[in-house]
């Protein structure tokens, strides 16, 4: 299927013995992930812009009935913990302990699922009083948190992919540092939730 799979071309001795002028590149995937995160960050910037743009001049709907804090803060705790666990897993992987690393990734996936479960539970509570079509606030509230939820699911898919890999750091497949890249994305999704809690949940409660 791929030219990489072709047999070694060792007939020409001069070709295979020639030394490589430099080590194998390990950061190509990370570069792509960084740029992908940049464009995702711009997307959330637009969503936050919309959130504040739709607020009338006197910021009335921030004070009308602010969203309840406890569940959002619980979700924040879950997500921050998951980031710490994932960071630990990355450290273990670098230290050459793939089993512990895999355990850490598994724990992160479980915490991510807990987050999604709480979000569904929170939505059911919210939906009693506020629907996406109630008003513009409802629209942006559910869109912003919902799109974040989709990002959590995407991050989970990446982590599950990493868990399925036969080897976490294939010796000769250096451009892929899958755990590191999925980790970057997960930390980004985590950071966005910090912003959402601060701007959408905490700020209105301060008024």
């Amino acid at each position, binding site marked *: 299927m791929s030219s990489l799979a072709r047999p070694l071309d060792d007939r020409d001795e001069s070709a295979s013995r020639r030394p490589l002028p430099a080590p194998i590149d390990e950061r190509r995937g990370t570069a*792509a992930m960084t740029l992908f995160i940049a464009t995702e960050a711009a997307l959330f910037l637009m969503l936050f812009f919309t959130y504040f743009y739709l607020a009338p001049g006197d910021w009335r709907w921030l004070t009308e009935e602010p969203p309840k804090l406890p569940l959002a803060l619980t979700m924040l705790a879950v997500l921050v913990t998951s980031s710490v666990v994932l960071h630990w897993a990355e450290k273990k992987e670098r230290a050459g302990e793939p089993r512990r690393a895999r355990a850490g990734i598994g724990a992160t996936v479980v915490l991510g699922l807990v987050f999604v479960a709480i979000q569904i539970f929170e939505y059911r509570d919210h939906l009693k009083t506020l629907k996406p079509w109630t008003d513009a606030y409802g629209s942006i509230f559910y*869109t912003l948190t919902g799109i974040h939820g989709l990002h959590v699911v995407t991050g989970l898919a990446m982590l599950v992919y990493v868990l399925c890999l036969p080897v976490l750091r294939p010796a000769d497949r250096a451009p892929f540092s899958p755990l590191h890249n999925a980790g970057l994305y997960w930390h980004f999704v985590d950071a966005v939730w910090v912003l959402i809690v601060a701007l959408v949940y905490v700020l209105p409660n301060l008024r």
Partner: protein
Amino acid sequence: MAGLEQRLEGIWGGEPGIRGWFSTVDHKKIGLRYLVTAFLFLLVGGIEALILRTQLARADANLLSPEAYNQIFTMHGMTMIFWYASPILSGFGNYLVPLMIGSRDMAYPRLNAFSYWVFVLSGLFLYSSLAIGQAPHAGWFAYVPYTTSRYSPGLNMDFYALALLFLTISTTAGAINFIATILRMRAPGMAISRMPLVMYSTLTTSLSVVFSLPALSAACVFLELDRRWGTRFFDVHHGGQPILWQHLFWFFGHPWVYIVFLPATGMISMLLPVFSRRPIVGYPYVAVATVLTAVVGFGVWVHHMFAVGMTQLSMSFFSAASMTISLFSAVQVFAWIATLWKGRPVRTASLLFALGFIAALVIGGLNGIVTAVIPVDWQLHATYFIVAHLHYVLVGANVFPVFAALYYWYPKFTGRMLDERLGKASFWVMFVGFNVTFFPMHVTGLLGMPRRIYTYPAGSGWESWNVASSAGAVILSAGILMSVWNFLASRRAGALAGANPWNADTLEWAIPSPPPSYAFEHLPTVRTRHPLWDEWDELDDPSGERILDRGGRRLTLVTSILDARPKAVATMPGDTLTPLWAALALTVLFVALLLRIPWVALAALLLTALASAAWLWPEKEVAKIA
């Protein structure tokens, strides 16, 4: 060295046959596909324009119904702006960027193939709307509330929002690819101060894409949610804001103007010095002006909204920022004029197109300054004056540079020269046709003819100007067809080009035309801005250190971002069908979203994820190279 060529060809050449055609990740093949596909979209958009001009050639015409007219002018705008103007530049970029920087492929070859497939499939998705008579019909910027479900039931605007979201995936992936390629894959020694100028424009516009396109995505998501799920983003009665659409759309839309403009100026900055037989005047100024155009371009979007009603202060700010842009364009224009002035210009067809571009850009720039003045803008808003302005800028600053670039690089693409006489004739016909079409629109605009009307009453005083515009459109089309004939016929009949027919200065001219799959036998090193004009032998590599054929793997060099010191060897992926599968799964997803079949959409999403996983999956039989 025949053995070396064969070995490299064995590593980099793809599989033969149909399967190889679909599975290739070679940037040269993908680049040509981008060029051909985008050019076809140009022709389709051109046919739509001709239909519109036929309708407008006389007063009280009834060739098209108002609805048909709306659909066709919207499709014309969307096709030209989204499926032609940007993708054709991606085509040049795909083909030329790796060769110009001395690399063997883009940073992410599979992502590159994926970008192309998504681009084609999103275009087919959009055009399927025309087939069922429900094409988008609210102009390319689709203002709410015209586009909400209340005023536009039917699938028309759903096609609009979904097709653009679909295309966004391709454009973003392409931009990420360009950024990583230009920053990481340059030949050793090609410090950032020695890059060909088109790298500055490609890099700058790619960064603009990364940061501005999400605004369009957000706007399209909101529109779909409002239309389909009854959310209230644009519903005034429930706290929504129709102006939100305009802000988001133009926050994306104005940077987009530079996205389809700057790479074109970059290409001019490559070929104009070659035909002037001297290096460009003011390289650093042109580079900085390019970057600043895009940076300030993020702060001018409100000039599309002067008629909305905003505070004096914010309008003054955006008016001033809009005028600032003309300074940066002027820096580039004066650099080109000075280059021509100080050089010994060779009057090729390509240079003629470049000169036509400069003339059109100056007119389009000047009438742009006129429209940046708020009181004047209020008079001219939504008249044909704006149509004249945007066509001078977009046709002038995209189509003419694209033709200049085609005449310049066609020998590299095909190994054959184009017919210069036919090319020059084609230019003059196009240039005359272009001005006869669009210059009278300034007048019809000043006379008060609104844009987007499907017909106008007799006796309005607009008839003769419209006849001129319609006649001009026919002349312009004839000019384009002359070049199309030239492109087709020269593939066989053209004189052999050789490696460097123009005696040009950049690295793509150091290798045979058309280039072999591996591009460079020995990866080049660079010491100046004009590799082929200096005394340095870029390909000199006596110990064969930079052949990189070890282990039968596809390899190329990675260098540091600023000074391009060799840092690492990149292992490049092989050919695969997975990007095509991912793109097809995405197509199913968007069709399912359009037809509201949630389970199919979910399944398609899952398939996309699986295809992506297969695409990234490490391959087993990997030769040891380190």
